[in-house]
């Protein structure tokens, strides 16, 4: 039997590798629906990832898809986009991939305002390598490399990307499928660097170690603790502590930045005009 989304999936690769209760599949389906609803020709979409559970996602999506090295999806995608400005390039990768090993690349891509849509699956842990501490693990979180509870201050991904210059920044959980799909759609239509953090369950690694062994327990936590805030505008620079995530604490969701700013390619086109005029 065919599913209406099959044409955007590599059905010949299914079943996928993800665990029961994992949130990544939900995020993939939000992406696919956003692509369908965008009205942009499917062929124009290209998806890139690094390494990790999340980074396997592009392999299941039936578009030109590139599974690269750990942490390097953003510069690879930047090459694609700058070499062919017609492409709609989006990245699906984990919090470890994008903010630990790839941390330098994400802040620079946001600073340059390269037109990319980055969808970061934040499960608070390294899934694929077996549950080690991530730069997003909340203080107190138990992982295989923080067995006594994490004591490092975690990154706040929405502050970080907003501060680095992203023109679109939002955070949702996998419970908020409608909002997530809409956010991805908005990002596809944004000119510039868009960042969407999706808080996602990893029952196998994070849940098991932190008293939420089943996907459903994590979804209950999302339901109880997530609050949607519509009045936070991180583009103004008044960051406060509004969106910090603490262990078992509130998850503030919403759209935090939605601004316009010339993209890298806009600036490059300007430059090309200037130099071609100087040639004459």
């Amino acid at each position, binding site marked *: 039997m065919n599913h209406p989304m099959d044409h955007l999936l590599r059905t010949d690769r299914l079943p996928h590798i993800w665990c029961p209760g994992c949130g990544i599949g939900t995020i993939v389906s939000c992406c696919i629906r956003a692509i369908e609803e965008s009205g942009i020709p499917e062929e124009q979409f290209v998806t890139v990832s690094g390494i990790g559970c999340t980074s396997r996602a592009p392999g299941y999506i039936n578009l030109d898809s590139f*599974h690269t090295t750990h942490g390097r999806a953003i510069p690879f995608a930047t090459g694609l986009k700058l070499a062919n400005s017609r492409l709609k390039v989006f990245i699906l990768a984990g919090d470890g991939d994008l903010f630990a090993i790839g941390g330098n690349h994400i802040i*620079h891509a946001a600073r340059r305002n390269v037109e990319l849509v980055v969808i970061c699956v934040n499960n608070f842990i390294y899934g694929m390598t077996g549950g080690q501490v991530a730069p997003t693990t909340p203080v107190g979180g138990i992982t295989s490399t923080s067995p006594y509870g994490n004591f490092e201050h975690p990154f706040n991904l929405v502050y970080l990307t907003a501060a680095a210059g992203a023109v679109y920044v939002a955070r949702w959980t996998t419970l908020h499928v409608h909002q997530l799909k809409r956010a991805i759609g908005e990002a596809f239509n944004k000119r510039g660097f868009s960042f969407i953090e999706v808080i996602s369950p990893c029952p196998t690694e994070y849940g098991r170690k932190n008293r939420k062994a089943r996907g459903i327990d994590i979804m209950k936590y999302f339901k109880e603790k997530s609050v949607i805030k519509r009045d936070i505008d991180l583009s103004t620079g008044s960051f406060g502590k509004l969106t910090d995530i603490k262990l078992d604490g509130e998850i503030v969701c919403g759209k935090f930045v939605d601004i316009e700013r010339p993209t890298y390619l806009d600036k490059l086109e300007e430059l090309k005009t200037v130099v071609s005029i100087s040639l004459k």
Partner: protein
Amino acid sequence: MNTEFLKGEHFVQGNIACAEGAIVAGCRFFAGYPITPSTEIGEHMAERLPKLGGVFVQFEDEIASIAAILGASWAGVKSMTATSGPGFSLMNENIGLGAMMEVPCVVVNIQRGGPSTGLPTMEGQADVMQARWGSHGDYEIIAVSPNSPQEIFDLTIEAFNLSEQYRVPTIVLSDAAVGHMTEKVKFRTPEEVKITPRRYTTLKPGDYLPHKPDSDLVPPIIKAGDGYRIHTTGLTHDERGYPVMKEEAQGRLVRRLVNKIRKNANKIIRVEEIDTHNADVVVISYGITSRIVWSGIELSKRKGIKVGYLRLITIWPFPEAMVRELSNHITGFVVVEMNLGQIFYEVERCSAVKTLLVPHAGGGFHKPEEISQAIEEVAKKRK
């Protein structure tokens, strides 16, 4: 330097000649991070590419630079990065990705003395093995080794051609001496040189598989966004590009990646040979060192020794068969290189005769006497 392509003869630095060669080859995307002694290549590209409709990006590091040129190449644009030893070390993980994804692109390494930060402004030739095996796993790349500004111009074009022909990252392995030396360069325009076009598939989407090779073991390529909907990965994959975690798939893929270079080696390899067929001793060298060996050879010739000269122009793949063949009718080899033995071991394994290394740790050049002494020592074997 405002015209589209430089014409005629100019007195320029090797690094500038390298950048101009890339432009003639069709490179329109350059990503890099500054490092001595390669910096002028990026600086020159920053000036030239916007005028030619191309893209120059100075990235946050070398890792981003190599990743970006792989992406740009998949988007259908010939791309290049340039660096020196420490940056080359950082690039190696993604050179492996380029080998695995079969991405045509050019990486220039203007070598300096190492290891580590070593001698930033001074020449070295000690990244020879890193160029070949720098990334983890089994793979083969192509590397060329120019010995003059003219040759770095010509060989950069050649590097693009080879990388397009074999869908493999190709390395221009030069050094601080060639990069910073200023000499006369005859620039050629794209009409005057051979430019190998990208080998795009003629198949329709649906019929095309990104890693299904032609009879020469090289698969044709596509451009992202053209509707082929391919998947490609650094994981072990099948012809569709889908990951397959099986011994059989690993064997098939890795053997092909290696064999597409090894089995085509005779078509790839270029050397310069002088008097080798009537020599007792053959001096083997490459890059800047190949210009130093002449004074050593002259000294020995004056003493009546028959000395031949073999210069590696493509350094990888290594001209194994040629060295074996030579070894059948000479007394011995002398390998002169600016490291403590890298190509020496390659020669030694192919040689049935006495083989001496004249090493140098970098940051200066061999003395002619060291070379002639080695030649004479090998020649003595004859008696």
